[in-house]
């Protein structure tokens, strides 16, 4: 060890303090004589404003690394959007004019949602772009699947091989053997349209392990599956989420919540864990997991009994008449009857009951309820994943949250909660292929007719059931082995060519699923790809444009770029150009009818380019954009390449109350409850944001609105056209007991757990990571790389866990994991919590995979149904082209807890119910941090047990269809595919194990 001498204060010659004092006195006197302040006190630093757009072509700033020399760096500032979480916040890439490389990313002030502000993940995009371990070239598997040996391939090889398989599957009628599994899409509908052009119902999403539960509750109320809270103008903000720190769309929402708080708004947060959001709340409630709906209903009861319900709104906009007809047919069918009935329905939800369920003091609940009741129409609320994603019946959490807004009339009001489609703009693209003529049972099985999204996390079990096979399975920036519960079952099927014939991983970086791929194809990050998107972040509509910034920079310099690979690192591509090229190779002569959707309109017979695709879209489908562009002498595409976003509208307001234009009213049919159907065709609007699609009447007229106050108004895209307090859909499809906003006791309710079990919360994010997508960012990895188990001091003491950092074993239904304890009062007693971002791994022997700062090297052992994983090597400093990899100071990267979770499909929403009933004990002597053990036979048992709780369409469908046609579906097949096929022609409605599924009704 080298030794150095500490530098001592230099023994300076004794200063003449007297003379110095005189000088200071004189200087002070002189300054004050001039009217100046000599002692100015502590600093007041002003934040720099953003570079003005007129200087984005030539922005100069001093190079901090050249200090103390003043060296100017000249940059072109090119906008794009972040590709990490789903917020799609605006970024500005600082492209060095001399080297044409991206130097850094900062916020884009022209972005209406994020307004120039970003979380840590936005600027960290530069790490992802320059990650020394990223995948730069197409790779083809060299050894056995999962063995970890690869050889470099050309894009032509990959495209030809994959296109050949796809063409064969399509021409042989095996459409359902093609599937693209999407992580967070970060774009609005391109992939769905690619699949539609192939005639394939193969869109699979991660949503049923993410937000389906939350969406379901909103969809049954409004016909639209997401809320858009106007936090900025709210008086009371009610969050069953962590929107000041994480979640969709936390940065845009957080800044508006902060503005509201500055004006005096109160924030109420329901979160069992002391999240960063909870720390900012005026009222933090830490309920027993799964009891949130009971609290909501107690608040609802208080609104009703205290006379604060907005009866005028309810009379006009709730489907109370349908409720009375269905549930109280013998009573007078009057609004007064309904008022009484509503009070009766929730009379039992006293604060005492909610307190008993939630463990939150009744007086606290009463205080919060009074606050909510006093908010009037300025009540914004949000529930997204959190409780809705954790619990059996979690979808009722969001349904009961919106119940509060609906009671107050705080729907699409200033400070209220909007249906998201009011605040979202999805421009109609140049080609819209028709609905596929097939139905994918592997994603949309009969057991889950009301599932909000694809039953993606059950795919391994369905394949093991023999319900089908996949010829070609794509993952698109997605990591199902790591992200889903029961990842070992994913490994089993992905490693089996009989179940998955060809696995193509489209990914910028290595991940736990790509190890099993046949092809690994490098896709671009935020600054290396094109996408459009629009998200509900305030009461307005905007369109964002992600673009390859080096392409845009070169084009500003007059260079022509025809393929994004020309500017991306290595041979990294983007999906749009990839899919266009792939589609042409599937159907080179156009005979399959596919190519037409990927052809140029301007140059028939030529491939569609991304410039034409987006140029057409911005020219024809974004109102106001052509005019705004023309005012600056730009084309709409040039405008979007320059600014990266465009605000289409602001202040949408109560769209539901808008009168329907006369031209849409023809051959009307008005039902007794005021539903209005029209014979006029639906005009082709430019905005194709997804909403529910209420069925036509018996004569084929389309649902156009509702009659309110003698005027046909737009209403809501629900069967009734109104807010559905009572859901005819739930009632008709076998769940009448849950047709109203209600409380379903969770699978982790105390009644459903053994006395020695605790609840494990596994769903929460950290603000600085986003699943596996951000894991190749060195800055983010340094900030967050491990996931200790939160445990309350009383539980720790009871269990004999002495100190933070001690190892503990968490046993689930199918195995266990070993993690470090974090003893904290930030978690409720009886509950433990572990963030899901960590525990990344690579397999021993996968030497081609650099582990970076986040992946431990593990061994995986299989012994029949018993699998185990053990960490063999933790992360450590290593040599690379980035000197920072020598500075990795951490070794603990957490534990991959999801591997030990069985699947828990909610029988209604289809959401995986993440919370686990676990037994927590101190680790045993042989345990090591990161250990995993899983029994896949037990996993199958749990799968069958939950499947037995479903009410399949085959037995419960009211109209012999697979699914209510009005419900949203990311890629909707043709109408005739909805019919339940004959048992011989399709997999039985009873599933693989007929005995497992209830047939009683």
């Amino acid at each position, binding site marked *: *060890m080298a030794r150095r001498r500490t530098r001592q*204060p230099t023994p300076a010659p004794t200063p003449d303090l007297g003379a*110095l004092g005189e000088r*200071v006195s004189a200087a002070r006197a002189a300054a004050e004589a001039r009217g100046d302040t000599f002692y*100015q006190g502590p600093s007041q630093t002003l934040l720099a404003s953003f570079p003005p757009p007129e200087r984005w072509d030539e922005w100069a700033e001093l190079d901090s690394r050249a200090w103390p020399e003043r060296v100017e760096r000249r940059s072109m500032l090119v906008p794009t959007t972040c590709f990490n979480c789903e917020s799609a916040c605006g970024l500005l890439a600082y492209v060095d004019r001399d080297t044409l490389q991206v130097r850094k990313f900062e916020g884009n002030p022209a972005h209406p949602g994020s307004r120039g502000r970003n979380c840590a993940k936005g600027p960290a995009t530069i790490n992802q772009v320059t990650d020394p371990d990223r995948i730069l070239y197409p790779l083809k598997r060299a050894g056995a699947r999962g063995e970890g040996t690869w050889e470099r391939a050309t894009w032509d090889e990959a495209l030809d091989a994959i296109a050949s398989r796809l063409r064969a599957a399509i021409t042989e009628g095996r459409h359902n053997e093609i599937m693209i599994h999407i992580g967070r899409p970060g774009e609005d509908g391109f992939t769905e349209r690619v699949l539609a052009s192939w005639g394939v119902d193969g869109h699979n999403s991660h949503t049923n392990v993410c937000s389906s539960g939350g969406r379901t509750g909103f969809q049954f109320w409004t016909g639209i599956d997401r809320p858009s809270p106007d936090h900025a103008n709210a008086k009371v903000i009610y969050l069953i989420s962590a929107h000041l720190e994480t979640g969709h769309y936390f940065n845009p929402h957080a800044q508006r919540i902060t503005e509201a708080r500055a004006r005096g708004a109160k924030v109420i947060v329901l979160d069992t864990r002391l999240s960063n959001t909870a720390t900012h709340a005026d009222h933090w409630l830490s309920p027993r997991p799964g009891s949130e709906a009971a609290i909501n209903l107690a608040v609802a009861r208080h609104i009703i009994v205290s006379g604060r319900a907005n009866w005028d709104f309810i009379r006009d906009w709730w489907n109370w008449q349908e409720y009375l007809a269905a549930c109280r047919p013998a009573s007078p069918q009057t609004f007064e009857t309904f008022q009484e009935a509503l009070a009766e329905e929730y009379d039992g939800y006293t604060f005492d009951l909610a307190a008993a369920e939630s463990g939150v003091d009744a007086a606290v609940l009463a205080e919060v309820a009074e606050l909510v009741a006093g908010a009037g129409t300025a009540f914004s609320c949000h529930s997204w994943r959190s409780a809705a994603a954790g619990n059996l019946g979690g979808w009722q959490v969001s349904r009961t949250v919106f119940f509060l807004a609906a009671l107050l009339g705080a729907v699409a009001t200033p400070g209220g909660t909007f249906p998201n489609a009011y605040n979202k703009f999805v421009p109609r693209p140049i080609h819209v292929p028709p609905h596929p003529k097939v139905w994918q049972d592997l994603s949309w099985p009969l057991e889950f007719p009301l599932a909000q999204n694809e039953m993606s996390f059950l795919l391994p079990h369905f394949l093991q059931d023999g319900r089908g096979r996949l010829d070609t399975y794509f993952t698109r920036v997605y990591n199902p082995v790591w992200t889903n519960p029961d990842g070992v079952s994913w490994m089993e099927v992905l490693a089996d060519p009989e179940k998955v014939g060809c696995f193509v991983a489209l990914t910028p970086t290595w991940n736990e699923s790509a190890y099993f791929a046949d092809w690994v194809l490098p896709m671009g990050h935020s600054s290396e790809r094109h996408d459009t998107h629009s998200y509900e972040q305030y009461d307005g509509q905007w369109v964002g444009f992600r673009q390859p910034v080096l392409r845009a920079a070169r084009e500003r310099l007059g260079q022509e770029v025809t393929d994004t690979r020309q500017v991306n690192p290595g041979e990294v591509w983007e999906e749009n150009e990839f899919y266009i090229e792939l589609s042409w190779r599937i159907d080179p002569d156009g005979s399959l009818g596919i190519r037409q959707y990927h052809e140029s309109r301007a140059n028939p017979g030529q491939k569609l380019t991304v410039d034409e695709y987006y140029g057409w879209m911005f020219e024809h489908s974004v109102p106001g954009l052509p005019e705004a562009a023309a005012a600056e002498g730009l084309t709409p595409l040039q405008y979007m390449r320059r600014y990266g976003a465009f605000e289409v509208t602001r202040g949408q307001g109560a769209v539901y109350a808008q009168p329907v234009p006369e031209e849409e009213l023809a051959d009307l049919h008005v039902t007794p409850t005021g539903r209005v159907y029209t014979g006029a065709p639906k005009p082709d609007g430019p905005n194709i944001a997804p909403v529910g699609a209420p069925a036509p009447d018996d004569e084929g007229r389309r649902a156009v609105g509702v009659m309110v106050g003698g005027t046909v108004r737009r209403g809501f895209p629900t069967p009734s056209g109104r807010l559905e307090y009572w859901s005819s859909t739930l009632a008709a499809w076998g769940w009448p007991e849950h047709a109203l906003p209600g409380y379903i006791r969770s699978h982790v309710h105390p009644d459903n757990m053994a006395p020695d079990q605790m609840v494990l919360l596994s769903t929460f994010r950290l603000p600085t990571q986003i699943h596996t997508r951000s894991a190749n960012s060195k800055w983010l990895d*340094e900030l967050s790389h491990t996931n200790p188990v939160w445990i309350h001091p009383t539980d720790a003491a009871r269990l004999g866990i002495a*100190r933070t950092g001690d190892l503990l074993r968490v046993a689930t239904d199918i195995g266990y994991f070993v993690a470090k304890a974090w003893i904290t009062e930030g978690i409720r007693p009886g509950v433990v919590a572990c963030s899901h971002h960590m525990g990344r791994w690579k397999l021993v022997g996968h030497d081609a995979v650099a582990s970076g700062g986040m992946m431990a090297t593990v061994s995986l052992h299989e012994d029949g149904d018993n699998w185990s994983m053990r960490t063999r090597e933790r992360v450590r400093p290593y040599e690379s082209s980035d000197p920072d990899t020598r500075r990795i100071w951490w070794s603990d990267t957490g534990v991959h807890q999801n591997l030990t979770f069985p699947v828990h499909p909610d029988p209604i929403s289809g959401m995986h119910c993440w919370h686990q009933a676990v037994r927590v004990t101190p680790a045993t002597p042989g345990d090591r941090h990161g250990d995993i053990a899983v029994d896949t036979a037990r996993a199958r048992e749990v799968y069958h047990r939950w499947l037995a709780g479903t009410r399949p369409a085959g037995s419960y469908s009211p109209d012999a269809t697979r699914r209510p046609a009005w419900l949203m579906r990311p890629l909707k097949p043709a109408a005739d595919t909805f019919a339940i096929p004959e048992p011989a022609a399709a997999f039985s409605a009873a599933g693989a194990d007929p005995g497992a599924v209830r047939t009683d009704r």
Partner: protein
Amino acid sequence: MTPAAGVVTADPAEPAAADPAAAEPAAAEPEGADRWELLRALGALAATPPPASRPVSEALGLPPSAPADHTRLFVQDLPPHASIHLGPEGKLGGEGADRVAGLWRALSLEPPPDADHLASLLWLCAELGAAAGSCRTAVAQRRLEHARSVLLWEHLASWLPGYLAAAAPYPAAGGWSGLTLAALRRELATTAAAAVLPAALRDAPAPVDPHERAGDLLQAMTVPVRTGFVLTARDLARAGADIGVGVRVGERRFALQAMADQDPRATLSWLAGHARRWAGVHAAQPIASLASEWWAQRAAATAATLERLAGDA
């Protein structure tokens, strides 16, 4: 942060409480206003970053420092608060700050928010000195001189020499640290040396214990009164280079933990050497002999403990 001028009145209404620890105050030196202005100016440089402080640094004949250097020294690495150097947890506020606030209250003054910041302490010292010089009664003058003496020995001499030694290598310290040390020395010379250790050192927590949990031990390394030394982020960066481990950018406690995780023996050895060096720093700077001796002994004890632990690691 900087108290308004004239907070201390020359003729307080109430006589000062008797303080058995203080000797008969010596008479103020005759430099008058200039002497107090020097103290104010030296304090102001610790509180006000350039360019706003440039007239002050020019008057003192000190080179201007860069704003970033100023922030690095006075905001990030070595905030000049007595509580950090005298408090039992080595943190802002708490007991260390309460002691200083108590002096203000004893003078019937409302303590400012940053009462224990060096700028506030030097400003108060100047105010007390100026007020004492214009007292009309000997009783009032003695009371103010006594207060100034308490301030100097209890709240400045007890930690400032060590702080200035730690600050000296920083670019923003320039000639400021030496000048401040000289000014302190001159002020101390005008009062009788305290007969007992400052209360913060008398009541200081125990030195580091070889049986402490590793985490607690590392936490203690950031607490000057427990170790006898000041450990800066700059020191840690040098340590990383010396012993060849990665240095986590962040709070010192976490950086130390990361270093110890990588190479516990080398980390402990380096810390032991650091403590040894600091024992020498204190011994070579006997400005307030009792306090300096205490600091030197504490650093030496820490060095011995860490050497033992390094041997066992």
